């Protein structure tokens, strides 16, 4: 089944991203800085998201996952491609037209210390989305108190400032803010990476419970494979701007077929000394190539032990190669790594 069939048959997805491309121009020096190249942060990414489910987007630094999240929200204007929410094309909307749509698409950021304005009390931070959309009056404060309680914070502390809260609490404030306008989709950009281990679990639990209660759809972006496995229904693995493998959680973790996915899974440490020491590790050679000048054809070929000539000339499509889920590799082969 090709990708085109997929999207044509099921065009009722809550969110549909098709052939998304985002490039950042690299400017040279001089009086008038001309563009000398482009960072190809996101190169032809396609996926969909349905109500109530979590799509995990996993990859290492520089793979373009954060940029993808922001491009979906139109925080970065996509260079090309389509983002459809409820059937409506977002990339062609003006700022003004996009505003009401933003009520439904929200985001929670990675850094609990930078994502809250240090000069605003928490009540104002959580209430701001409502004020921005013209909701005023005592109902705002009531809802703020309700939201704070929902995320596990004491509403009485609402008049305090962000620096008075711990990292985990600040992240909860960020979640409360994202919930303020009753969104349908929340993009979570590494929401727990900056938190202590013992605090991460609390936030992950909170997100799961909220999803169950409110029917939210999550695009969960992270580099921690264990967290992704825990929370996702489906998983997409990104490398250097492209999705290399996408499928259900079970398919990606237990039947990984792309060499990069396999390398990634084999490198992630397991908290069990016997298993960890007995593991067969796939250690990749070399470094991630520059996104300004990515390799031709399959971008992973410079570090792949299966690379052949065809990998340089023909870009592998993200299609089902007999495993039931889609893989972008000419030599895809199921291998149990975890």
């Amino acid at each position, binding site marked *: 089944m090709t990708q085109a069939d997929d999207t044509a048959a099921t065009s009722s997805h809550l969110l549909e991203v098709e052939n998304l491309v985002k490039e950042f121009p690299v400017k040279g020096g001089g009086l008038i800085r001309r563009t000398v190249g482009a960072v190809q942060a996101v190169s032809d990414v396609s996926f969909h998201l349905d109500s109530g489910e979590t799509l995990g987007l996993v990859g*290492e*630094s520089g793979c373009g996952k954060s940029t993808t999240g922001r491009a979906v929200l139109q925080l970065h204007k996509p260079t090309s491609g389509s983002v459809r929410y409820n059937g409506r094309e977002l990339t062609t909307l003006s700022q003004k037209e996009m505003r009401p749509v933003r009520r439904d698409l929200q985001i929670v950021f990675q850094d609990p210390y930078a994502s809250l304005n240090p000069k605003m009390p928490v009540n104002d931070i959580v209430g701001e989305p409502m004020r921005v959309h013209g909701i005023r009056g005592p109902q705002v404060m009531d809802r703020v108190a309700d939201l704070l309680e929902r995320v596990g914070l004491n509403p009485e502390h609402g008049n305090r400032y962000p620096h008075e809260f*711990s*990292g*985990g*609490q600040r992240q909860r404030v960020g979640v409360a803010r994202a919930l303020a306008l009753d969104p349908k989709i929340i993009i979570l950009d590494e929401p727990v990476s900056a938190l*202590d*281990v*013992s*605090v*991460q*679990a*609390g936030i*992950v*639990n909170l997100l799961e419970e909220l999803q169950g209660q409110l029917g939210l759809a999550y695009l969960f972006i992270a*580099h921690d*494979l*264990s*967290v992704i*496995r*825990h*929370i996702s229904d489906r998983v997409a693995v990104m490398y250097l701007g492209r999705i290399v493998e996408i499928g259900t*959680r*079970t398919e990606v*973790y237990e039947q990984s077929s792309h060499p990069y996915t396999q*390398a*990634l*899974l*084999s*490198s*992630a*440490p*397991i*908290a*069990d*000394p*016997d*298993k*960890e*020491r007995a593991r067969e*590790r796939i*250690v*990749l050679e070399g*470094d*991630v190539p520059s996104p300004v000048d990515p390799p031709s054809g399959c971008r992973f070929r410079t570090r792949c032990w299966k690379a052949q000539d065809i990998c340089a000339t023909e870009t592998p499509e993200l299609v089902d190669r007999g495993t039931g889920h889609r893989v972008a590799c000419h030599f895809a082969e199921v291998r149990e790594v*975890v």
Partner: protein
Amino acid sequence: MSTEILNVSDLTVGFPTDDGLVTAVRGVSYSLKEREVLAIVGESGSGKSVSAMALMGLLPKTARITGSIRFRDEEVLDMTPRRYREIRGQNIAMIFQDPMTSMNPVYTVGDQLAEAYRSHHRVERKVALGKAVEMLDRVGIPQAKDRARSYPHEFSGGMRQRAMIAMAIINSPDIIIADEPTTALDVTVQAQILETLVEVKDSVNAAVILITHDLGVVAGMAHRVLVMYAGRGVERCDVEDIYRRPRMPYTAGLLGSIPALDSAGGKLHPIAGAPPSLINLPAGCPFSPRCPLVSDRCQTEEPQLLATDLAHHEVACHNWEQVAASPDPTLIFRTAAVEA
């Protein structure tokens, strides 16, 4: 029976601040044998990095350090600055978390390694550079000779960290302190670096103190583990015991709050609350506000690190027997409202 090369006893480090004296490390004790890997595990506020910096003598002058650090047979805290400089880099070397800022951007990598070597060996620059290239090769940097002439910013994150490792081993130290060496790196690079570290430590016969918060990394490398919380050691044992037979509720809680890579497990069981502020420590055991096993004694009397039923396993908890008795210690953190 390998000999003990480091013995830290009741180490305490305090910093005077605007809000009062912050005691970042409150009486930490552990020992390290030759070629042993000791992992010091803790979250923010645990004091793990500060205690390592105390070993190296890298704390600011305002820091107040008491206790004892015995390296082989010398008391480190009594050393003259000159003697300290001799052992620092030569006998005890350190690898920091962020390789970008740990290297001087205006000198080539080869020069910096050579400088590290010449600080402890009277040789010509040429000889030192040769040694530098040898080390870069040892840590797996391709084309080491050319690479030695590059600047730090020309290296990728993983390669920089390898260069840091090279700098640490160039003098064949007895102890390598690795302070969160892979936290800032991608997971595939992390695997490479840890592998390199293991090979390299064996080749120079060094012991390693690995400071981390990642229990997966610990599982792969450590022989012994010290868990720190709020500035003191709360559990000290062999690595298998940490995962299979923990005796400290905090450790059990940590294990229960990590999602597993190899199974799509059920619910995570977080530890309620957050690590305490070092200025505003609770009376008694600092973990008591978050501990499901808390009893009256916990809130008045701070437990000491004492022996348990297992060999080489000490824990600082009044109720450790309850943890020992439970078949799955992570169960103690399950909230009442959720059934399995």
